Structures are given as structure tokens and as C-alpha cells.
């Protein structure tokens, strides 16, 4: 039924009927559209400063909301490094030294591979719908504003995230991350909506930290396939350490 309502052939937020006033459903729809149940993607991550750029090529596999495995394909220094996420646990694997390192909670603040994304982003990226309460804010022009406030029992780094979503396609165009003092700390923007394997997904992401706006991290999706079949042990310690 849900799928039928959100049939991509007729997708428009205004067509969502009563759900247009339900922020939870709005976010769930966006997650379903962008993530699917299982996906394989190839992307570039560019860390950009005024004088210097550094680009990583990454392949990423995702199943559900709790399992993900990414492998860096270039540059040579990082080639082969893998990150596995299962539930709330995360490991990095450095194949040249055959070294597996569990990413502890103490490391969640740390930058992932020198980017503006943290280990926490990689670990918790999918929990927006579960760890936050959602309500609509005042519309900003063509965008619907959704305020995501951390649930009292959830362990999240950002107490508040504000989502700006397009009224046309329901997909997010911006996440604003606020700290405990309600101060804006960083902004993630989405653009270049593309059709990947029947799903509409922003192909261009930009994360800009407020403390240094001259620096940003850009993710560009090169390919994205959905409903990919993975081996039963694809998201496992064994597979993590097999390259």
C-alpha cells in the first residue's frame, strides 16, 4: 500500500495526501527513496580547501539500516581500507598491515578519512528516523522544514538537525546540524537529483563546517544500484578482513 502511494511514477509531495502533514512519513519516504533495502554505490569524496583538494574513490554496500561495508579504491595510500558497520558497532580494516581496528565510542567525533564527515555520521547516518522526534517547522519558500529533535533516550551527537526538503519531490536539500547550545555547527546540502535504478537520489552532497567555511567535503555518486543481492556473510568480520 505504502509503495503504491509512493509510486515513483506519480511522486509529488502534494500527492501524498494526509501524509503531507506527517513529518515522520515524509522522512521515511526520503530514506526509502535514497537508500532502498539493499544498494551498491560508487562515489567520490572530495575534501576541498582553498589551496588543495583530495579525492577518495569509494565503493559502498548497504543492506537495511544497520549493515554497511565501504571500501576505498583510491588514492594509493588509502586503497583497500574498509569500514564495516553492523548494528551499532564499527570497524576499520587496513589490509596492507592486516590490521582491524574497532571504532570505539571515543572515536565517533573523529573525522572519517580526514573528511568533514565523522565516524558518527558513518555509523549513525541511517538512524535519523529512529533516534529523533520530527515535526514540521515554518516553510522556507519551496522547502518544507522538518525539525528533528533527539529523543531523550537516544545517544546521538547532534541534539537537533533541521531538514529542508523539496515540496516537489520530498527529497532533502539540506541538513543543518546544531549543538547543545543550539548553535549551527555544519550544513549538508544535496543537489543534482538523478534517477538511479528507478530511485530519485541527490547525486551531489556538500558538507560545510561552520567553523571553517572555506573547507568542505563533497560526495558525488557515480553509480547506484538497488536491490543488489549480497552473500549471506557479506557484512561480516570475515569478509571485512578478506582483502
Amino acid at each position, binding site marked *: 500500500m505504502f509503495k503504491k502511494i509512493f509510486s515513483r511514477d506519480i511522486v509529488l509531495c502534494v500527492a501524498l495526501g494526509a501524509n503531507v502533514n506527517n513529518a515522520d512519513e515524509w522522512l521515511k519516504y526520503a530514506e526509502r527513496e535514497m537508500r532502498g533495502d539493499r544498494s551498491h554505490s560508487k562515489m567520490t569524496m572530495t575534501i576541498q580547501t582553498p589551496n588543495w583538494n583530495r579525492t577518495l574513490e569509494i565503493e559502498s554496500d548497504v543492506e537495511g539500516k544497520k549493515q554497511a561495508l565501504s571500501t576505498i579504491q583510491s588514492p594509493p595510500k588509502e586503497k583497500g581500507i574498509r569500514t564495516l558497520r553492523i548494528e551499532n558497532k564499527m570497524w576499520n580494516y587496513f589490509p596492507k598491515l592486516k590490521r582491524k581496528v574497532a571504532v570505539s565510542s571515543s572515536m565517533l567525533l573523529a573525522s572519517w578519512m580526514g573528511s568533514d564527515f565523522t565516524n558518527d555520521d558513518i555509523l549513525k547516518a541511517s538512524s535519523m528516523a529512529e533516534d529523533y522526534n520530527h515535526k514540521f517547522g515554518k516553510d522556507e519558500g519551496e522547502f518544507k522544514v522538518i525539525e528533528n529533535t533527539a529523543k531523550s533516550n537516544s545517544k546521538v551527537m547532534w541534539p537537533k538537525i533541521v531538514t529542508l526538503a523539496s515540496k516537489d519531490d520530498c527529497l532533502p536539500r539540506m541538513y543543518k546540524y546544531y549543538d547543545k547550545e543550539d548553535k549551527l555547527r555544519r550544513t549538508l546540502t544535496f543537489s543534482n537529483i538523478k534517477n538511479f535504478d528507478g530511485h530519485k537520489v541527490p547525486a551531489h552532497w556538500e558538507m560545510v563546517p561552520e567553523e571553517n567555511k572555506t573547507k568542505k567535503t563533497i560526495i558525488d555518486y557515480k553509480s547506484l544500484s538497488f536491490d543488489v543481492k549480497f552473500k549471506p556473510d557479506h557484512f561480516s*568480520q570475515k569478509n571485512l578482513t578478506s582483502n
Partner: protein
Amino acid sequence: MKNASILLTLLLSLPILAGVDVDLSGNVEGQFRHVKNNEEADEPPLFQDWNQENFYLLYGNINGKIEMGDSRLEANWFGRFSQSELYNPDPLFGIERDSYLATSIYTFPNKLVARDVFQLQSVDQNGNYQIESVLNKFYYEWDYEEHRFMAGRIYVNYGLGEIFNPINPFNQPTALTAISQVAQGNDGFSFTFFADDKHTIQFLLLGDKRIEGYDGQIDRTLWAHGEYQYSESIQLDYVIGEDQNRQKIGGQLSYQLEEALIFSQILYQSKNVKNEPSNDLFDILLGYDEQLTSKWHLRVEGGHQKKNNYATFTSFERFLPTEYFVAIANLYEVHPLLKVNATIINDIKSGFTYLIGKGTYNLSKNTEAELFGYVPVGTGDEAENLAQKLVTTDIGVGLRMFF
């Protein structure tokens, strides 16, 4: 060493068959280091009678891998060229001498193979230079369901200790050195059973000819290492076995606090099982790890390793730390391109303190430069460890490339 080159060439030149992935990667680094000797090293019994010198180092790895379904064949060749007048000391009392001992510090880890049956390595010292060549990884790996089998010269890498990691005798921590992308190989077999995502156990059967000499018998290692995720915040590692003619048992317990990780390691080693003169050994480590801010990472390690009364002090089996130690390591990202590392390590008993500073700058996608300094300070009058007197004051620069 020709054998090693041939093996590597064969590995990399196998025909590319359907479904076979071939990968070649590596790194090379050149270093210049200006070093100043500890004045006390000049005295008997050390006789390290030099003042200041330069030390040049060029080292690199070439790593090749062939992957066929659930099987892998992988090799790594490590080469190192070092040049300094420290390799060529003047005769003492008319007697020719080996290199000054400090050269062992600058080329740590000296042994690129921890448990060695098939030499596959060469060291050539001539005049004021030394050339080393070693195939420190060469193994076949096969995955079958929840099992993994490995045979050959393998890396064994586990344990949370970065400065001291007693539960893993098969790979020396290199956090205190200026060398990177280096691990030690071990000759033998490994069998791993992945029971589930909470429990993995690895069995090792390794051999070592270094103790008896290459013409002697193989000293065996029988070893088990398990990882058990007890709960979301507690992980237990256990080790048990016989290694280098000692029975060893120990483990690691790590506990995740909300914003930090604390961990401890204990390892007990019996006396020599062949009844050679020895004392039993006991190592303990306590560690604390926290990402203080998004740019600042703090690591504290402290511990004790019971003194081996029968070890020769020049062996550098354990470069640092010493009998009792505490170390504080800070890593700070000054800029996306620049990371600074400052470490201080203190021998509580002797008062010996060692400061290490490193700054690493990304010059390009494949190249980084490193400026480093090593300064021994606070050498106590009651220093019991002669090796501490060998630690020099260094400043150096390195250029590192990856391909």
C-alpha cells in the same frame, strides 16, 4: 635474495585469468636524520665514541596480490638502504668494531620477520652503508564457509596497545619510530574460525629457526588468540600457547565508556621450557583512549614488563618502553593537510624521559612529507637500563610516496 625476487616476479606475472583480480601497490620513503650522541654512551662498557653524525635512509614496500574467488595469494617485499659513518667506526684498541649501536634504533624494527623458518632475506653491510632485502609477507589464504586457512609468511596483527602490546609477540608496535607501513611476517600456518560476529578464534602454528640458528632445529609456536564481544561495551581477547620456548597466557579487556575507551592487557610467560637459564616474565598494560575534539586525539598507556635477566641489552628486542613506563600520545589535526603528533614516554624507575614530535604534511595525493624530532630528557642518575644511554637526540625529515 634472488629467490625472493623470483617469487615476487612469478606472483605478479601469473596470467590474468577470468575472475582473477591482480593488485600491485607500495610505498617508498627517503629520510635524512641528523643525530647527536648521548655523552654517557661514550663511557665503558658502551664505548659509543661519536658525537654528531648524519643518517640517510631509503626504504620501501612492493605489495602484490592475486585474488581468485575465495583464495588469495599475497606477497610483500621490503627493501631498506641506510648510509652513515655510524656503520663504520674506527677500531678500538686496535680491534675492528661492528656498527655503532644507535644504527639499530634508526632502522627499528630491525627484524621484518618475527618467526622465521625460510630466511628469504639478506643484509649486506659494507663500509658506511647497509642494504636489507626481505620478503616479509608471502602467503596463500583460503576462505571456506566460516573458516579461513593461511599458509606461508603471514602478518599477525591484533591488540590495542600502540606503544606496548604484549599479548601479540608476532608484530612489534612501531608508534615510536619514524617508519610507516611496516609489519613483521611470521612463517607457518593460521586457521581462523569465525563462530559469529561476536566470537572469532585464530590458531597459529609457527616456526622459528633464529633461536637455534638456521642450521638448527625449528622452535615451534602453538598459539591461540580469541576475540569475544561480551557486550556492546566490553570485549575480551585471550591468548594462550607456547612461543619461543616459553609457555604464555594472557588477555586483553577493553571497556567502552561513553566518550573514551579503557583497556588492559596481561601476559604471563613461563621460564624456558628447555630448562635453559631464564626467569619467568610478566607484562601488564593499562590504556586510555579518547577523541577529545574532532581534531585532537589522546592516548595514554602505562605498564610494567618484568625484566628479563638473561637478555642481552644490545638485542633491541624491545626498543621501548622499559621496565616501568607511562606514555602520553597526542595527535592533533592542525589543518586537513597537516597532522602533528607529540608523544612523551617516561621510565618511572630511572626517570628517563623521551620526547617525540612529528609533523606530517600532505604534499599531494600520493606524497607526504614528515618532520620529526626525538629528544631524550630527564635521564636519571639511577638509570639501570644501559640501552637508555644509547638513545640519541635526532632531528630529521622524510619524504613518503605511495603508488
